């Protein structure tokens, strides 16, 4: 009760501050007069009595201030006053304010941007119900590496694991969607088992999801689910679409529902059809093509599910083919799994941006320290006028906080720009759920970082202000006096230089990796190659013969286009990947150790010529090989030669995969998906053996892009129900395949550049101070005949000395940090001497340049004026 009244009183006083101050002053005056009168009454002279009363009373203003400090309302009033004062200072020192705010804005903007990526990939829960119960399940090879899932294994898990609430098997399909009489469009979709929506905890927007009947063999399987975006863009958001048929691959399928976008899958998935698993799929534990997602039963942990699945595999082992006896199974939390690839890079970027933030803090702390020194007289004056030391510290902290918050707000603006730029780039390699966005979490983070930096760089000056040395500060005649500035600045700069070394080394290693990766030999000549994808409807091309006939007809038409030099088909196109992962062997009866996971591809005659692949021995495939009844022959890549034939000429020897193939040719390793991945053994067989799916490559005499319309027309002429999509030059594909690496390099190089700028400012500041401090000494030297060169050398060597400490520390730090980056590098050793030498030299040069300004200023010192000071 009384506490409450106390607060009320305090707040009233705070709010009506003017009244209160006046009353207090009045009260003090009354006291002094009463005391003086009492003294006069005791016989003192009136003047003396008044003076004695004043002396007895003590420092009136301190007393007032200490009473004021006690008041809660006053706290607000003082803060408001501090903020006003801080803003006034800000305007009074525009250059200083701009530099500090700009530095904070850069640091906060960078940090918030990286945090948004971090948040999206590692922290933000997946946008599904109870996302912690979502898992991905994979088969494991006997060496422990992951593999796609076979339908048989999926059915074993689904049927036997009690800790699974539901599970879905998902494979990619493409289909030609025909609308009315026009030509078809090719769209991508998913082939899924019926628990799709249950696993992701989603409900359909319209209609229903799949039921057990939809993917049962012999059931009504001609159904389709549309995604919302397909429904809106292609069907005008028609609310009556459920129950109507659409033509997918020339086959009518009834739309049973519309589902939300963003079900985790390949990004462009626009529809789902049931994956019908019949008795043969059930028994078949080979044919690894699917991705499996599961929802765990409530209360189950990932390790529990993992253990149960492994037990199921052991129990059912007799039903698996012999080579899969030692295969395993693994369940992983979906969130962790999605971030697996991005995590090391994000951690590296997070570390880099933290370093930049620290360097920025050090710089601002330095600036504030320097300014605090310049303001020492002002601070001392305020202390003398009755400001308490706590009050002074608080005011300095308020100033830092105001700077930090303004900087933070600008930083958030920068982050907004950077995040949208980042997201635009990352669309190429991140699933939609992991794209960074500027949301409240990121904004909150930015605010927190700005406040923390404000406190971090404001703490030192504020601490020093707690006990101002009044006499010293007042006695000094001005900011340029010869007294030494407070220490601490040099230590901050050494730290900055060290952190910058680490960042420069990281940037150098990343940059060199990128250069190596971009310049890596793709194994063919991509500059005049056009590629595109298509898929043939089951309904009109029900058997291999019809598909092969279509392919041959199209290739023939393409070769007839003027400007086309060669054309051919393949399942796997460079930079897009493709073909099957299969076990290869060089012996007919392989033991376990003889099987090596490689890739197989089916290509037509003309494919190697169209690609510009380089023949190393033997011959390419010819038209005669590409017949249903042709001899079993294969072309292999160099990895096969290395793996199976100990680098001897394999032409005429045999390689086994589902039977023997005679090797007729050897080519240089052609890139699969990325230039920075190792080449797997790869064998190319004739398309006629498996013409189910294929893409087409065309080699042109001129600019390949100009032939795109003619190519499209050629396909349409053969069959208007088949669409050529994703027409691209392989040069474009090559550039795009490095987007993620290039982006990482740019980010790190930007950080390193920022760090270098900040560190050079730091060196400059300290050297400029040193020159001011040594002014008398330098003048004396000049007066005594020291040459310009001597003075410059003396100052610059001081700057180098400062940098040297940082270089040593930073070199050691970089050695440690680069080991952590090892996994992100391509064909560059973490201890690459060129990178280290380059980084150290760069900083040394920058340190010398940064010291040059102060050094030249030193040579122009007016000796007489300086000595007279």
């Amino acid at each position, binding site marked *: 009760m009384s506490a409450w009244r106390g607060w009320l*009183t305090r707040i009233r006083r705070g709010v009506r501050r003017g009244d209160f101050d006046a009353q207090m002053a009045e009260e003090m005056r*009354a006291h002094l007069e009463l005391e003086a009168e009492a003294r006069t009454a005791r016989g003192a002279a009136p003047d003396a009595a008044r003076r004695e009363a004043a002396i007895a009373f003590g420092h009136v203003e301190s007393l007032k201030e200490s009473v004021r400090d006690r008041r809660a309302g006053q706290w607000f009033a003082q803060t408001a006053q501090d903020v006003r004062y801080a803003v006034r200072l800000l305007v009074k020192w525009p250059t200083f304010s701009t530099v500090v705010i700009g530095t904070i804005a850069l640091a906060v903007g960078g940090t918030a941007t990286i945090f948004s990526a971090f948040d999206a990939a590692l922290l933000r829960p997946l946008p599904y119900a109870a996302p912690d119960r979502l898992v991905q399940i994979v088969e494991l090879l006997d060496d422990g590496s992951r593999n796609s899932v076979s339908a048989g294994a999926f059915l074993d898990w689904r049927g036997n694991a009690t800790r699974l609430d539901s599970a879905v098997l998902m494979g990619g399909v493409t289909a030609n969607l025909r609308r009315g009489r026009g030509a078809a469009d090719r769209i991508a979709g998913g082939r899924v088992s019926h628990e799709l929506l249950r696993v992701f905890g989603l409900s359909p927007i319209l209609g229903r999801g799949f039921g057990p009947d939809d993917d049962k063999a012999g059931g009504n399987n001609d159904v389709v689910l549309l995604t919302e975006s397909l429904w809106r863009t292609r069907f005008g958001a028609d609310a009556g679409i459920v129950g109507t048929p659409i033509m997918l691959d020339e086959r009518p399928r009834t739309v049973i529902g519309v589902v939300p976008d963003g079900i985790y899958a390949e990004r462009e998935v626009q529809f789902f059809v049931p994956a019908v698993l019949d008795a043969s799929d059930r028994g078949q534990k080979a044919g690894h093509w699917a991705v499996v997602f599961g929802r765990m039963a409530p209360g189950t942990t990932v390790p529990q599910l993992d253990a149960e699945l492994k037990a199921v595999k052991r129990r059912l082992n007799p039903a698996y083919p012999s080579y899969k006896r030692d295969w395993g199974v693994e369940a992983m939390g979906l969130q962790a799994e999605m971030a697996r690839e991005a995590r090391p890079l994000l951690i590296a970027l997070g570390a880099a941006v933290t370093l930049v933030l620290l360097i920025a803090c050090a710089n601002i702390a330095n600036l504030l320290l320097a300014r605090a020194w310049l303001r020492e007289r002002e601070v001392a004056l305020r202390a003398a006028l009755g400001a308490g030391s706590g009050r002074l510290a608080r005011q300095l902290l308020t100033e830092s906080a105001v700077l930090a918050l303004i900087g933070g707000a600008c930083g958030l603006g920068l982050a907004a720009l950077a995040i949208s730029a980042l997201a635009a780039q990352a669309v190429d390699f991140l699933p939609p759920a992991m794209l960074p966005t500027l949301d409240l979490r990121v904004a909150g983070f930015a605010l927190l970082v700005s406040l923390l930096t404000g406190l971090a760089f404001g703490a030192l000056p504020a601490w020093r202000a707690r006990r101002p040395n009044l006499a010293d500060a007042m006695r000094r005649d001005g900011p340029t006096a010869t007294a030494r500035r407070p220490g601490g600045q040099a230590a901050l700069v050494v730290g900055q230089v060290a952190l910058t070394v680490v960042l420069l080394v990281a940037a150098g290693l990343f940059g060199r990796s990128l250069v190596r990766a971009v310049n890596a030999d793709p194994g063919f000549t991509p500059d005049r190659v056009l590629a595109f994808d298509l898929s043939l409807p089951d309904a009109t091309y029900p058997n291999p013969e019809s598909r092969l006939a279509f392919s041959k007809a199209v290739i023939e038409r393409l070769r007839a286009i003027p400007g086309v030099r060669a054309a051919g088909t393949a399942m796997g196109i460079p930079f897009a990947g493709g073909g099957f992962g299969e076990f290869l062997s060089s012996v007919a009866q392989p033991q376990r150790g003889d099987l090596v996971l490689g890739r197989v591809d089916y290509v037509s005659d003309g494919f190697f010529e169209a690609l510009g692949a380089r023949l190393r021995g033997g011959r390419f495939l010819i038209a005669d090989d590409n017949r249903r009844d042709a001899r079993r022959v294969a072309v292999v890549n160099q990895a096969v030669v290395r793996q199976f034939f100990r680098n001897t000429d394999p032409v005429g020897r045999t390689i086994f995969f589902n039977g023997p193939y005679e090797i007729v040719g050897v080519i240089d390793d052609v890139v699969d998906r990325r230039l920075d991945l190792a080449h797997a053994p790869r064998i190319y067989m004739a398309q006629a053996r498996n013409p189910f799916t294929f893409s087409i490559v065309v080699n042109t005499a001129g600019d390949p892009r100009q032939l795109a319309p003619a190519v499209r027309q050629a396909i349409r002429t053969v069959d208007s129900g088949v669409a050529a999509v994703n027409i691209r030059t392989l040069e474009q594909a090559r550039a795009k395949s490095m987007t993620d690496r290039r982006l990482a390099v740019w980010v790190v190089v930007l950080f390193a550049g920022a760090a270098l700028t900040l560190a050079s400012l730091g060196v400059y500041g300290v050297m400029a101070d040193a020159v001011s401090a040594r002014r008398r000494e330098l003048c004396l030297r000049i007066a005594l005949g020291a040459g310009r060169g001597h003075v410059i050398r003396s100052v610059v060597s001081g700057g180098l000395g400062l940098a040297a400490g940082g270089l040593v520390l930073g070199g050691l730090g970089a050695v440690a940090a680069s080991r952590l980056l090892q996994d992100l590098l391509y064909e560059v050793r973490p201890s690459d001497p060129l990178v280290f030498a380059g980084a150290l030299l760069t900083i040394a040069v920058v340190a010398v340049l940064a010291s040059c300004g102060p050094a030249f200023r030193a040579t122009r010192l007016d000796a007489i004026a300086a000595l007279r000071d």
Partner: protein
Amino acid sequence: MAKDKADLLQGTLDLLVLKALQLEPQHGFGIAQRIQQLSSDVLRVEQGSLYPALYRLEERGWIEADWGTSDNNRKAKFYALTRTGRRHLGAEEASWARLSGAVNQVLLGGGRS
């Protein structure tokens, strides 16, 4: 250490101020005088402590202030005990008596043995 001592003094000063106001309202200077007088000139109250104490007591609601006129017709701020202040004074006096009695007992007892 230093802080404990300050707290003890502060608590004591509060008690003395309340006691000085027990009979009649008084202004700051009067309170200082009265404490000095009651303690036979042993206790001198510094103004630097007195006024913060007065504001503190006012916040707690133990005393209230009003402007009035002093004996020699001077405008001054007069402090008076409130009802809670009076109650608090009673409690404090009792606890002080207990405390000082106990301290005395210890000191005397120590002297005899």
